[in-house]
């Protein structure tokens, strides 16, 4: 048994994974159970499935391919504001969709900054609506995430390896072959799968920037089945299709991502001796400036639009912000309690099923999870009373796949390198956890917690189904403001959300990396 030779057991992780799977699949089953015989999947749904796949594949490819040089530049360069840039880059991911879209349009839209600039030279305004608009927006959302996942891969190469490479005078190609390419082979498939899964359930982005019903995604078809036709059977069926697609992508990614780690180091800060040539500097600089402009211009548009509204928001927005902070906090704790044992179980070789159950949170449509939980909770308790806890738990499940991707490689490495030594010292269980694993995992825990907190802060999924008039989160309140014509106050709320999420992310992420890499 893999368990016997290790200081930790996989039992906990397996149990937690089973609970996660039971909760999500149970919600799906509840929807099926309540369904009457429906229409089944029609030709329009197949068109939606095709479009969903195409945009998700393109979005994943562009996000990850563009992220590689950006992550490499961030790994090689040390400059003033690097930390802030990394934190800022996390921002788009957690914004409510409509806010992010308005930010993108302020830059790339028909009357956006770029179109205005082009107009000065007599060009036509940009045409953003269409498949390219969808992909552009998805890259805006996911490039930062992909960059962070890949950057982490770079940072997990021990400092000693770079020192060694410098000592043997490894040139660019050797460096690539020895260190970078094997690392990317491990990290890139997972990043592709995660971005693919996120884009698979996209709906408002695809519809708004896709330009019309051509850009129908599975998620919109689920929405239609639920709201327009009240055909729960079809909603569940389509959700099943989404589940299969995500699962297939995850399996492929897990298969492809092979290779050993890079061995243990002494956890020293990484120093790089490569990439000091003029060409490399220019290349890295260009990548960083391009990525920063691409991500920061829309964000600045959101800030500029939000400043005048900050004062006119009213007490209910601040109250909603309090709710959001509370949910984010609880959700982050829940996430860590779930993700750590699961990551250990995966690292101990109980991979496949545990990791798959971790992906379920992304794979099953939030609308279906929410509806299913509603059906389950309704007979035994008041759904409104449970709005906040349910939202916190579901948000934790949504960020679980990211947390696992962040934690697993490092846990695996720590176990592989320190497992036997610890056993020979009779360090196991809690002692191993406290003395060996957690300290080495701190940067990853910080990153995962920061991402979970930020994601949860910006999430709109389940709360919309459970909230009554008193319990609203900040994103929901922003939508309500917009629904009441108060666009200025809504922009203020969006800016507040941006600050809160980034603040949470920055504090947790920094807290995790306090000693490393200044």
């Amino acid at each position, binding site marked *: 048994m893999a368990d016997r030779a290790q200081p930790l057991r996989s039992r906990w992780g397996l149990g937690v994974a089973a609970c996660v799977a039971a909760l999500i699949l149970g919600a799906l089953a509840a929807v099926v159970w309540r369904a009457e015989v429906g229409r089944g999947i029609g030709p*329009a749904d197949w068109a939606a499935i095709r479009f969903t796949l195409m945009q998700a594949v393109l979005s994943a490819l562009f996000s990850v391919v563009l992220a590689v040089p950006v992550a490499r530049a961030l790994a090689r360069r040390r400059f003033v504001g690097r930390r802030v840039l990394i934190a800022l880059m996390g921002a788009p991911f957690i914004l409510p969709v409509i806010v992010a879209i308005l930010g993108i349009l302020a830059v790339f839209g*028909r009357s956006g900054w770029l179109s205005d600039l082009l107009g000065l030279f007599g060009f036509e305004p940009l045409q953003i609506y269409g498949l390219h608009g969808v992909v552009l927006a998805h890259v805006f959302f996911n490039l930062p995430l992909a960059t962070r996942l890949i950057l982490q891969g770079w940072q997990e190469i021990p400092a000693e390896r770079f020192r060694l490479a410098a000592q043997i005078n490894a040139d660019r190609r050797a460096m690539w072959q020895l260190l970078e390419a094997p690392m990317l082979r491990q990290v890139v498939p997972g990043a592709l799968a995660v971005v693919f899964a996120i884009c698979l359930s996209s709906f408002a982005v695809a519809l*708004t920037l896709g330009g*019309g019903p051509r850009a129908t995604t599975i998620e*919109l078809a689920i929405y239609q089945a639920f709201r327009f036709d009240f055909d729960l059977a079809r909603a569940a069926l389509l959700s099943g299709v989404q589940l299969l697609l995500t699962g297939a992508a995850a399996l492929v990614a897990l298969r492809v991502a092979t290779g050993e780690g890079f061995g243990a180091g002494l956890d020293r800060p990484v120093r790089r001796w490569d990439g000091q040539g003029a060409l490399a500097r220019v290349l890295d600089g260009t990548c960083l400036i391009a990525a920063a402009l691409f991500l920061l211009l829309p964000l600045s548009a959101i800030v500029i639009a939000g400043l005048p509204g900050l004062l006119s928001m009213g007490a209910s927005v601040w109250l909603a912000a309090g709710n959001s902070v509370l949910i984010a906090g609880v959700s982050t704790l829940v996430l860590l309690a779930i993700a750590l044992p699961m990551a250990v179980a995966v690292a101990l070789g109980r991979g496949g099923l545990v990791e798959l159950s971790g992906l379920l949170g992304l794979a099953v449509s939030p609308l279906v999870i929410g509806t299913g939980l509603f059906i389950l909770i*309704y007979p035994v308790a008041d759904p409104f009373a449970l709005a906040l806890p349910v939202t916190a738990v579901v948000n934790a499940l949504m960020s679980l796949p990211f947390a696992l991707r962040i934690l697993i490689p490092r846990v695996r490495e720590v176990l592989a390198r320190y497992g036997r030594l610890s056993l020979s010292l009779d360090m196991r269980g809690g002692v191993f956890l406290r003395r060996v694993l957690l300290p080495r995992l701190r940067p990853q825990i910080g990153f995962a917690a920061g991402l979970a907190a930020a994601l949860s802060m910006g999430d709109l999924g389940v709360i919309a189904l459970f909230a009554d008039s008193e319990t609203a989160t900040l994103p929901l309140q922003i*939508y309500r403001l917009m629904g*009441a014509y108060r666009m200025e106050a809504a922009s203020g709320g969006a800016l507040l959300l941006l600050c809160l999420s980034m603040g949470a992310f920055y504090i947790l992420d920094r807290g995790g990396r306090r000693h490393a890499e200044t």
Partner: protein
Amino acid sequence: MKHLVLAAGLLGATAAYADTPELIVYTYDSFVSDWGPGPAVEKAFEATCGCDLKLVGAGDGAALLARVKLEGARSDADVVLGLDTNLTAAAKETGLFADHSVSADYALPFAWEDATFAPYDWGYFAFVHKADAVAPQNFGELAASDLKIVIQDPRSSTPGLGLLMWVKAAYGDKAPEVWDGLADNVLTVTKGWSEAYGLFLEGEADMVLSYTTSPAYHLIAEEDASKAAAVFDEGHYMQVEVAGKLANSDQPELADQFLAFMVSDAFQSVIPTTNWMYPAVTPAEGLPKGFETLVSPEKSLLLSEDEAAALRDVALDEWLTALSR
């Protein structure tokens, strides 16, 4: 002993609390928000009913119906407020609603005869544009122009469904040709009203599907007269928003009392400047200043709930076909 006194006190308090009956009204989100009619309505009704009015927001009109269907006969709700006439046929089909006993002198452009649902406000769908721009006079002119419009997806939004019904009511079997003509004017389609209106305000599109009353918000709340609604000579489709009581309500008298209150002055007078729609019964003081500047269509269009229900799937198919090309 002390414990006993405390326990008795607590029990007494609970009993006193339980004596106040609770009336639960499901409605859409923007109704319950601080800026909607919810807070004023709650205060005014609680002042007269000796009860606790609980307004629960559940998405928009379509989500509201889905919610009621999901909960079925066991629902805690006593009243559902916020369906429109495109949804009432489906709502009646559930058998969950009971007849009402409301009568009022409605200010609707037609006689209201519905035993199950009573109206509380109404409005005309219209394309809102910048006041200084030249607006088309009908769908034909719009199709011939190179104006760009933002509309909402009928599958996820009630105004989006309203536009389908508008074209259907005005053109019947010719609706597919109208959509063919409009296809190149549709800049994009959004999930809901908020997204579409946001895009319009950002300057992305020349016009947005909204209501003839939208300019009133800008005029009255923002003192900004720069928005106007285009009048189409085919007529304008109406949205009539209604409420009904649930057959399984445990507070049937209170529910009736609430529906009667709904068409009273206290409720109706807050509608124009909170829900930004026309009140179903003109308040004693008339419409607020600024509403007289709004355009008023010569002809109002409204399909009966049965026609609307029967045409819904056909109209959606026609729309999808024309815009997916």
